[in-house]
């Protein structure tokens, strides 16, 4: 009896989900664009993708209304089961053949086909098959209707499009309570900070025309970080070495001859 009622309640859930899914395929200014991102162009051709996408939406609306409204007929869940067999097959095809394609399952959100989408289509297939075992309408299901809440929750969990409404807020809360990267902080100055300070320094401006490479080497020694670049001075291969202080002081630079090791150029009296 309980199973009968549970089975009888299913069309309500399936109908509402189909309506939601169809709305994404039919309403909105960029439906044609969405259709292009799915695996449909590959399956039915570029030209036919948008009409097919809309037609599927139309079928979903008709089927949803048929499931939600009386009379009860075995044909309705049978049609739904056929549709979900089609969806599941399409998703498996898309996952294998066009893995970068959007699922296009529930319209607007463009998420690639994942195992969750396939599991979700299978769940809907199972519920529509369950409906085949009853002759009651969902309006006579009574308290069994509450079980739909659980199924709806499972549906939400399997919907990548809905993650931002529950999964991301949960993760945000977790990160706020205890940030997982709190222990990753290191004591040294990041090279990116040194590089930025360097590039804004008068010393860098003084020699920028001589530099030929990106940072070649860097090292720390006492209160300074040293950064070297390949340079060319008066046609000679050279190295420009910057001394960037950890605190205070101005950035210094010298251009050193690669062969002799002698200092060729050192700008003095740089503006602060």
């Amino acid at each position: 009896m309980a199973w009968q009622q549970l089975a009888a309640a299913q069309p309500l859930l399936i109908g509402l989900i189909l309506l939601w899914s169809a709305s994404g395929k039919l309403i909105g200014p960029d439906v044609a664009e969405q259709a292009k991102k799915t695996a449909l162009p590959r399956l039915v051709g570029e030209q036919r993708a948008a009409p097919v996408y809309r037609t599927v939406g139309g079928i979903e609306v008709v089927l949803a209304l048929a499931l939600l409204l009386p009379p009860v007929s075995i044909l309705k869940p049978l049609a739904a089961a056929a549709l979900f067999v089609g969806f599941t097959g399409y998703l498996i095809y898309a996952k294998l053949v066009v893995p970068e394609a959007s699922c296009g399952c529930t319209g607007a959100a463009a998420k690639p086909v994942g195992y969750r989408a396939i599991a979700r289509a299978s769940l809907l297939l199972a519920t529509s098959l369950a409906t085949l075992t009853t002759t009651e309408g969902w309006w006579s299901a009574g308290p069994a209707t509450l079980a739909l809440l659980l199924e709806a929750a499972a549906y939400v969990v399997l919907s990548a499009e809905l993650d931002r409404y529950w999964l991301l807020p949960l993760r945000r809360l977790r990160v706020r309570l205890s940030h997982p990267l709190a222990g990753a902080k290191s004591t040294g100055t990041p090279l990116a900070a040194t590089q930025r300070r360097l590039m804004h320094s008068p010393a860098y401006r003084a020699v920028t025309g001589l530099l030929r490479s990106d940072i070649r080497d860097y090292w720390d020694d006492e209160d300074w970080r040293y950064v070297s670049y390949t340079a060319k001075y008066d046609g000679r291969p050279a190295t420009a070495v910057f001394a960037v202080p950890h605190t205070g002081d101005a950035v210094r630079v010298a251009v050193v001859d690669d062969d002799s090791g002698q200092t060729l150029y050192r700008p003095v009296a740089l503006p602060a």
Partner: protein
Amino acid sequence: MTTTMDRRALLTRAALGATGLVAASAMGSLAPEAAFAADQPFAVAGQPDPNFAEGLITGRNKDLLQVQGSDGRLHKIQLTGVTSIWKLRPTTIDEARIGDGLYARGVKLPDGVLAAESVWLNIVNLDVMVNSIGRSSLNLDHHGQKVVGHVQPGITAAVYNGTPAVSDLTLLKVGRHVQVIGAWRPGTNEIDIATIYAAG
């Protein structure tokens, strides 16, 4: 290694001004052909820049790299002791391996070989959403594709709202868009993060 240390010691003294200054001309003038040999040919509008190459390293013979460009062109790239190599951070030329992606800038020699001055290995610049944060990595979403971003202690830095880079990553938030500069791990969807640009 000793030479690296010696060199660093020399450069350290030079940078701090502990060495005397010598005029370049005092070292003897360079022959004109030598001085002009290094002059770089300029890029012609509509033509590929001759001094730039990108692609995948398909072969390495000592310090000569064979690179297959993404446009199908083949490049030969010579690394030298003065080439700067970036692979998540400035490193040495030994780090250039077959399978690595490469950007190189240098001087095209008459024999067609590009003498590299700067090389960037596996560098990526991605606009991503932070999907979740773990103890040593971030799960990122790059236009629907999952990318794992590994945090490397002592290297990974964050820039919040354009302020100077810091190693503190605790201002990163789930669900936010960030820009990530990092080094791709070839053959995977994983990167090591060099710098992450975020709104604080």
